[in-house]
Each structure stands twice: as C-alpha cells, then as structure tokens.
C-alpha cells in the first residue's frame, strides 16, 4: 500500500515538474503583449466608489471607469472632459457653471444629462470623505439640459480643480450607481473609457478593466484590457515589471538603480513634503511652543540638506515650506528661509526663556519615510537642547486617531502637493483637522486666505505665495524636505506615461501603446 502511495505521489510530482518545464520556455506574460496594460499597485483601493476612494493611491482604479467633469493636463492646466465650457459666473468665486458635452452615455447606456451630473456631485459632496474640500458648496443644480451650476456659500477658488481626475470629486456616477451606493464599492457605474470586469477581478488581488462600448471618444481607448495587480512586496513588484509580467509601478528612491539597470525607464516629479507639524501653537500641552521664537528655533536647528541627502539622495529637495514648485502657493524665495544655524536656534530659545532647551513628546508615522525624517530631526534638536520622545504609529487608523486626539503637541507629517486653498482647509483655517488638531488661528492668516479665495484667478498665485510666507514666518511647522514620486515603466511598450507636481500618471487617457 505504501509503495502504491509513493508511486502515485511521485507521479504527481512528475506531472507538476513536466507542466513546469513545458511552460518554462515561454517567458512572455500576458502583461508583456500589446493589447493588455498591466500596472502594479502596492495596495488595494479603499473603495471603488469615487466618493470613498483615497485620492492619490486609488486614482488609477477610479479614473479608468469614471470620467470627470474636467481634466487636468500634465502642464497643470484644466481642460475639457465631460464638460466643454466652464467658468466662474460674476466675481467672488461663488458661482461656477459648466456645460456638458452633448450625446454622452454612461457605460450602461443611460444618457448623461445635467440632472444626472448634478445628482452625482451632490452625492459626492454629501457622502464623500473629502468633505472639507466641498464644504463651501451649498448647492449643485441643473440649470438646463446640459448646464450645471455650483453655488458656494463662501468663495471657492478651486472648483475647476475639484472637478478634475486628481481630486475625484468630479467623477460622474450613473443613476444606477447612486440608486444602490453599496454596490459602488465593488462595481463600476461610470462613463469612463473602461468598465470594471467583475468576472475577472478578485478584490485585493487584481482588478480587470475592459473597454466601455458606449464611450464618447473611442480614440482614447488604447487597450483591450487594463489590469491593476496588487503586489505589496516592493521587491517582487519591481522584479515583476523587470521580467515583463507587468508594465508600470511606483518605486522608491533606493529602487531606481535596480529599475534602470533592468532596462526600465524612470520618471519622477515632486509630489509630497515631509517634516514636523508644531500643532500646539497655543501651548496647551507644551508651553514653549506658544512662543514663535521657539518654533523658529526648532526650524533653525534642522540641517535639512544633510537629512535630505542621507534619506532621499537626489530624489528629495530641502524645503521650509509646504508647497511644491508649480503650485500656486510655492514661494521660491522661502525654500531656504531657515538656513541651518544651531547658534541662532540657541539664542532664540534663550530669548524665549529656555536657555537649556525643553522636553517634547511627539507622534510620527512609519509610512513613506516620515518616521526616518522625524528621527533625524529629533537627533539634531538634541544639539540645541530639545529632547524629544516619539510615539510611532503603524497604521493609518492609529495615526488618524492619535493626530486628532490632541494628546501630542507635535506630529510627524507627510502630505501630497495641493493648491493652497485645499491646503488651507487642512492646515491653516481655524477648525480641527489631523494637521491642525488644536484649531490654531491666526487672524491675519485667515484674512489673507479669505482675500485670496475671492480674488480673480490671475491674482491668486501672488496672494497665496504671501500666505505661504506668512505661515512659514509664524513657524507653524518644521518642513524638512519634498520628495519625488518615482515611477518605473517599460518605455519600449508605452508612451504618454508622465508625472508632474500634483498630477498623477494618467492611465485612462494618456498612457498608450507605442
């Protein structure tokens, strides 16, 4: 009997080995062939519902199936998409109107009208997670068969940005999706170039998209199939692209050499800034932080250049501000406002009444290198007498809980580039958020923001740069560096794959076969 079992076991092994050998000669994966685009994402989407998806990490999943009202180009300019005409009505940035493209249908064949679009925008602003971005909007109404008007209770200078494919709010959902919102977590209900093929999708593993037969511009459908594969291990993910199993992935600075040596093309662009948010500006938990001189001393006590070089090599850039080149609030003259000067830091601490420094307890996160930046800053603060104990969070939920708990006077941060209006909702206005948990207020800053929000578009950059100078002068944070978003891809197969500040590579429209 045992002999029989051994023989049958060996036979199984032989079958396995034979099957493996038979396939071993073929190194071409489906992703390496012309008609399928295979992309790697390090994590599954939080939801496929555009209102509940994470902006940044989930955009690819949503953008393929949902067209937006407007479209941002790589140059940062807003262009047409589902809307062909758009603009503010009157002055003060409170009324915005757009006209829809005629004849557009959702993937299920339903006609897109001003009413369906208004219903979608109302669903998202009422149920979406990014409620602060839309909090100024108090109504979205159809004013004609193809015209939609957005009314804001206070000036909102970023409605065009809100409606593009980056911030997701303008992703138009069909009436069928809105009627059964729960299904939107796992199915697609859009008017994008592709639809989610649920039969060939396994949640958390891979997501398959096939062309939308009712799409309004078939020239934008470049692939017979787009697959987003979830690979959490960064080494395996890079090797999969190197061997042709997939075509695109996001990588870290220390993977660039491996990617280029494997024949992949690498593109990059500034996409986030990292540092320490000095949130207790009223000195509730840490009295020294109430004094602007102390907060400035903490800025002078950081050697940003050396930290950037050590942690991100050429893929980072030292900065004192929380904006990126190309964005409206970026003030080039304030990139090095607090040059490293420990002696000056000590003088400021002494003038504020802390000649021997002080102790600080802070929180940080172990994602995207935020904890590494925190540790480097903490070491340098020791030189000026500031001793810091750090609590490190290991999950998003833990971080959000701690950041909003008002138990930490300082928080390690990482934040993606955004327009200053959007940024101000999280960082600068006097309401509690994960980046301003104590709802700090600076009346001068609030007034500057109000003026900028209501100003004509062409005047906004100058006004927002002054906002940035103000907040850096007040040392509300110790920004340390900005990092690049880096992508590796197979340039022998692809064209149109590009990245820019506040712009994610566009899989749905721009990435095409060569």
């Amino acid at each position, binding site marked *: 009997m*045992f002999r029989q079992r051994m023989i049958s076991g060996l036979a199984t092994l032989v079958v396995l080995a034979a099957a493996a050998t038979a396939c*071993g000669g073929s190194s071409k994966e489906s992703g390496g062939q012309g008609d399928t685009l295979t992309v790697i994402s390090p994590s599954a989407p939080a939801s496929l519902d555009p209102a509940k998806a994470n902006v940044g990490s989930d955009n690819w999943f949503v953008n393929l199936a949902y067209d937006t009202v407007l479209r941002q180009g790589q140059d940062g300019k807003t262009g047409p998409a589902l809307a062909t005409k758009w603009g503010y009505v009157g002055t003060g940035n409170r009324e915005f109107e757009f006209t829809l493209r005629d004849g557009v249908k959702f993937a299920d064949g339903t006609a897109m009208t001003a009413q369906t679009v208004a219903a979608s925008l109302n669903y998202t602003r009422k149920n979406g997670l990014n409620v602060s971005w839309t909090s100024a909007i108090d109504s979205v109404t159809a004013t004609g068969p193809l015209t939609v008007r957005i009314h804001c209770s206070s000036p909102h200078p970023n409605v065009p940005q809100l409606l593009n494919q980056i911030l997701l709010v303008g992703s138009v959902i069909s009436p069928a999706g809105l009627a059964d919102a*729960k299904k939107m977590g796992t199915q697609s209900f859009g008017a994008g170039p592709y639809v989610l093929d649920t039969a060939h999708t396994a949640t958390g593993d891979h997501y398959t998209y096939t062309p939308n037969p009712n799409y309004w511009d078939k020239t934008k459908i470049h692939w017979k199939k787009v697959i987003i594969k979830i690979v959490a291990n960064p080494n395996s993910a890079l090797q999969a692209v190197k061997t042709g199993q997939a075509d695109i992935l996001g990588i870290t600075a220390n993977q660039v050499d491996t990617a280029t040596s494997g024949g992949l093309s690498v593109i990059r662009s500034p996409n986030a800034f990292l540092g320490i948010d000095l949130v207790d500006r009223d000195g509730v938990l840490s009295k020294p932080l109430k004094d602007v001189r102390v907060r400035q001393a903490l800025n002078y006590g950081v050697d940003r250049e050396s930290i950037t070089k050590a942690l991100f090599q050429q893929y980072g850039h030292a900065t004192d501000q929380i904006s990126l080149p190309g964005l409206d609030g970026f003030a080039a003259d304030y990139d090095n406002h607090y040059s490293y000067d420990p002696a000056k830091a000590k003088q400021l601490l002494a003038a504020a009444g802390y000649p021997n420094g002080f102790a600080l307890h802070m929180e940080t996160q172990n994602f995207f290198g935020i904890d590494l930046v925190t540790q480097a800053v903490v070491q340098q603060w020791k030189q000026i007498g500031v001793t810091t104990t750090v609590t490190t969070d290991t999950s998003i939920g833990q971080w959000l809980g701690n950041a909003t708990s008002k138990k930490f006077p300082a928080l390690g941060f990482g934040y993606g580039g955004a327009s200053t209006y959007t940024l101000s*909702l999280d960082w600068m206005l006097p309401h509690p958020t994960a980046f301003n948990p104590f709802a700090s207020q600076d009346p001068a800053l609030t007034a500057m923001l109000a003026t900028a929000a209501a100003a004509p578009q062409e005047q906004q950059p100058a006004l927002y740069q002054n906002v940035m100078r103000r907040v850096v002068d007040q040392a509300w944070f110790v920004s340390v560096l900005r990092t690049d978003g880096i992508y590796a891809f197979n340039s022998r197969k692809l064209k149109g794959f590009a990245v820019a500040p506040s712009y994610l590579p566009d899989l749905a429209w721009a990435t095409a076969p060569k």
Partner: protein
Amino acid sequence: MAIFRLVIRRLLSSTPLLFMVSALTFVLVSLVPGDPARTIVGQHATEEQYRTVRGQLGLDEPLPVQYWHWLVRVFHGDLASSLFSGEPVTSVLNNRLPVSISLIVAGTVVSGILGVALGLLSARRGGFLVRIVDGLSLIGLAVPAFWLALVLIAVLAVQLRWFPVTGYVPFADDPAQWARSLVLPVMSLSVGAVAIIAKQTRDSVLDTSTRDFIRVMQANGFSPRSILYRHVLRNAALPVVTVLGVVLVSLLSAAVFVETVFAMPGLGSLTQQATIQHDIPLIQGAVLYITVLVVLVNLLVDLAYGRLDPRVRAA
C-alpha cells in the same frame, strides 16, 4: 463505523477550540492600536462622519457585545462583511481558499515525497549521505522561507525567466500555468519541511530496522526489499505522519510570508492585509477558516494513525 465515530468525536471536541480561538482573536485585534472607522473615513472627514461610520460598523458597542453579535451571525451561517470592501467575508474567503489549499497541499506533497525519499536513501546507504541529509536539515531549518523566496525569484524568475515572479493562475483557467505559478512558492515553503521529514524518516527507519521482529524476519530469509517496504516503512511511518501533520500546520503560517512575496491571493496574504487595516470581520473569518483547516489536518493525521497502526484503531 468506528472511523465515523472517531470523526464525529474529534469534530465535536474541536468546537470549544473554535470558540476560544475566535474570542482570543477578537480580544487581540481590539488591543492593537488603531481604529478601522478612522481609516475608512480618512483624514478629511468630519468628527460626525467618523462617529456615524463607527456606529454603522457597531464599533461603538462594548467588546463583548460586538463579539456576541458576530457569534450570532456565525450561527446563522453569516460571517458578516468586510469593513472596507463591503463584500461578504464568506465569499472573499471562498475565493482565497483554493490558493492556500493548492499551495499547502502541493507543499506537503512535495516535502513529503522528497523528505521520505531522502530519509530512506540516507537510512539505507548511510555514510556520506547521512551527513548530507544532516547538513541539508540544518540549512533547511535555518533558511527563512521569505528569504529563500527572494533568492528563488532573483535566480529562477528574473535571471533565468523560467517562472513568473508573482501571481497565481487558477487550475480551472490553465492547469499548466497553475502548476508553473506554484513552483517557486512551493519550493520556498518546502525546503525546511523536506529537511525535517528526511531526518525524521531516517531516524525512524533506522530505529525500526533494529527491532527484534525485523531481525527475526531477516533470520527467516525474507527479502530485504520486502522487509523494508512492507514492515520497516509501515512501522516507521507513524512518527513521520506526526511530523507531516506538524509540517502541514507550520506551512499555513509560512504561507503568510510566501503569499505576500509572490503576491498570491491566498488566506495568508489576506489575513496580513486585514490585520494592517483592522478589518475585524475579515480577520475573524480568516482565523476561523485557518482553525478549521488545522482541525481537519489533525483529524487526517489521526485517521492515518488508525490506518497504519491497528492498536490505535482498536483504541
């Protein structure tokens, strides 16, 4: 009939274990810092939205109440839904189960066959082969599966391009690609197990070979081949089967790393993701499935004992 009674007895005696494991998991998950409702609502949500989601998910109730609600649903055959995707946990787990089963069964078969074959060879030939088996055992035990996985990817997938770096192909889609997608993960999982089984087989065979009844058979002129395969192996198989059971269970935990490295959509990688996200229903469901698998493996080992040893059957 006796086997049927054994199966029923074993399954009934496992019920308290399922309770204990599920309760313990619930407590442990609740002790891990972080709040799934915070993760779901994200950084721009209002406090009101956060509280609403917390209430909708039942996370504002005391822990024993949350556990009781979960338990009641389980008794109705409903493992609840994932906090994040909203998909029924049973459906998510049923999609993932074949991957883990393929990986673990293939890993056990390969390590069982190679381990027994190596152990037998070493017991019969002795000398240099014994030292090789001992050396391999040490290496096999010392090398972590995830490290081996990375090396195998670098050499066999990236350099030689014999196998895919990541992914899993369902058997129903393409049996050959299914086997191909399993080769590297199974190799990563099996090396340590082969070493343990080979060593156990050799020691067990050598021990049985020196027993009196074997000597009597040798003295009576039975052929060495017949003695080895019909008597020595059968008697030596008991401890080997025990080790095989232990190996199979240990492969379940090693599969967490291997599935993650090879991006295989199995129970292990799912449990890891669910733990990071604090997706309590998914963690509970996955742990329940894994516990049932462990119970079934132990049951199979018991049945194998009965088959190999009449004394166990009689007991």
